[in-house]
């Protein structure tokens, strides 16, 4: 007995130590600002899976594969569906999914650079729109409306600015035809006056789990001039418009991400799940 007891105690101690380490790690993941990026990635993986299963791309089998590595962006696209809201916004019976990503977290910072006015990706978003059910290609006006819907009714309210107080003024736009990924696209370039996300937090927002909690700011959702580029293609068989979008505060940064991500994107068609 006397020889068994210490071994059992040691095992128990080891087990307790391991449990304690796990608890500390979980606690850190849950509360430590330095772990904000890992917390965000862990939570967004679950969140994304829930939305992805009801997305346009899941149901049609068509998705935009966007290369994000090395771009300074958060390393995954997050999916959000808003069929009813978009149907009401554009009119008709539509399906709408937006995939989006934003500035990555900087090391040892508890928040994404999306909040940092000195970062080139301040207020930036990149991703893809999927609009199904229009019966035709989206018009230039509809492309603008989709972008406005995304920014003014989804993105900014999630960051704590109500859509009533959010600004989205189109300053200019132009369109041209381009060819990549073996298909024809219409490239829309625009500049837009809209709000950037810098703000001093008052209370807790769910989006802080995703972007981290911003530092105090001397500006509340300042108006920024954003350079936007949306490349739109239409897949008649699925009655699906796909828009690859980039929006940043500088023409140069938008051009860079357009080159590194949008133009390298592949539209992938997989068997539709039963």
């Amino acid at each position, binding site marked *: 007995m006397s020889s068994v007891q210490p071994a059992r105690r040691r095992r128990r101690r080891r087990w307790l130590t391991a449990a304690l380490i796990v608890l500390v790690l979980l606690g850190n993941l849950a509360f430590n600002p330095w772990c904000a990026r890992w917390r965000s990635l862990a939570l967004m993986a679950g969140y994304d899976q829930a939305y992805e299963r009801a997305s346009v791309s899941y149901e049609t089998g068509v998705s935009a594969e966007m290369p994000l590595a090395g771009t300074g962006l958060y390393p995954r696209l997050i999916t959000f569906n808003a069929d009813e809201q978009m149907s009401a916004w554009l009119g008709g019976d539509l399906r709408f999914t937006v995939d989006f990503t934003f500035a990555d977290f900087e090391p040892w910072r508890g928040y994404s650079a999306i909040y940092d006015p000195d970062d080139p990706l301040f207020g930036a978003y990149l991703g893809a729109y999927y609009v199904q059910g229009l019966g035709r290609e989206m018009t230039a006006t509809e492309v603008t409306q989709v972008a406005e819907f995304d920014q003014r009714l989804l993105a900014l309210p999630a960051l704590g600015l109500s859509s009533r107080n959010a600004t989205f003024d189109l300053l*200019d736009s132009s369109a041209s035809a381009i060819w990549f990924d073996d298909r024809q696209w219409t490239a829309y370039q625009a*500049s837009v006056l809209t709000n950037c996300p810098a703000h001093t937090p008052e209370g807790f927002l769910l989006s802080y789990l995703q972007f981290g909690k911003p530092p105090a700011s001397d500006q509340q959702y300042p*108006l*920024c*001039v954003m350079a936007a580029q949306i490349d739109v293609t239409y897949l008649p068989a699925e009655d699906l418009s796909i828009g690859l979008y980039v929006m940043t505060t500088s*023409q140069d940064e938008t051009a860079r991400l357009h080159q590194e991500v949008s133009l390298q994107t592949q539209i992938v068609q997989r068997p539709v799940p039963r």
Partner: protein
Amino acid sequence: MRHVPASVPKPPYAGVMAAEHYEGSHVQSAEVIAAMREAGRIAADSILAAASEIRPGVTTDHLDVVTHEYLCDHGAYPASLDYRGFPKSVCTSVNEVICHGIPDARPLRDGDLVKIDSTAYINGVHGDNCATFYVGEVSEEARLLTERTREALYRGIKAVKPGRPLSVIGRVIESYAKRFGYGVVREYTGHGVHTAFHSGLIVLHYDEPMLNTTMKPGMTFTIEPMLTLGSPRTKQWDDGWTVLTQDGSWSAQFEQTLVVTETGSEILTVPSSGELIQGGEVPQPPLS
């Protein structure tokens, strides 16, 4: 100094060298705004009258005469005249002169850019505006600078809405100018204008987030971006007025006086024709 008929009331600052002192509200009454529409209309028409005379060989002094006579004939005092010692009734700024150019005997040459800045004072209020015009055939570079400066002004005006900070105007203008590598002059700004010529309210044409004045319905001010082909750094001649680019690069300017409305803004410097001054090509005089 050109003669102003006694029937034309002078503003309180005429002949006074000291700076204006205005301590009232930046928000104006409906009566003041209505009076500013009239002052703005006369100021805009005076620019069109002067611009219709622009051609190679014409002196800027002649443009001064035309503007002066137009304003006085319509019961308005040329607000520039004797404003802190300014000797003429209009500012005419040619090529590398950014603003506050004093009309003189130099004849305009084919290919020049000339900015005409005219302010009318009537019924106790001001209308202030400026436009850039071509003298004969101008270079493509000068034409684009002119068109884009006009566009920059209208982008700035588009950004005007109650509740927004004034700084958004400069943000929009500067971001547009940067696209083309143009300089945005920083030392000279838009200003509050109404009963006072320069009320103390500052409207920057570049991004300065610390300028946190919030726009309110009834506020009246000018937006008047000055863009340059090169560096926006300025220098001033010994005359104490003429401002030009340090590097000699050409500059263009457009200006409107406007009022913040409940939903956006209203331009107050609208000519009698109802069509805003476009600048660029010289307007043809009306057929008699």
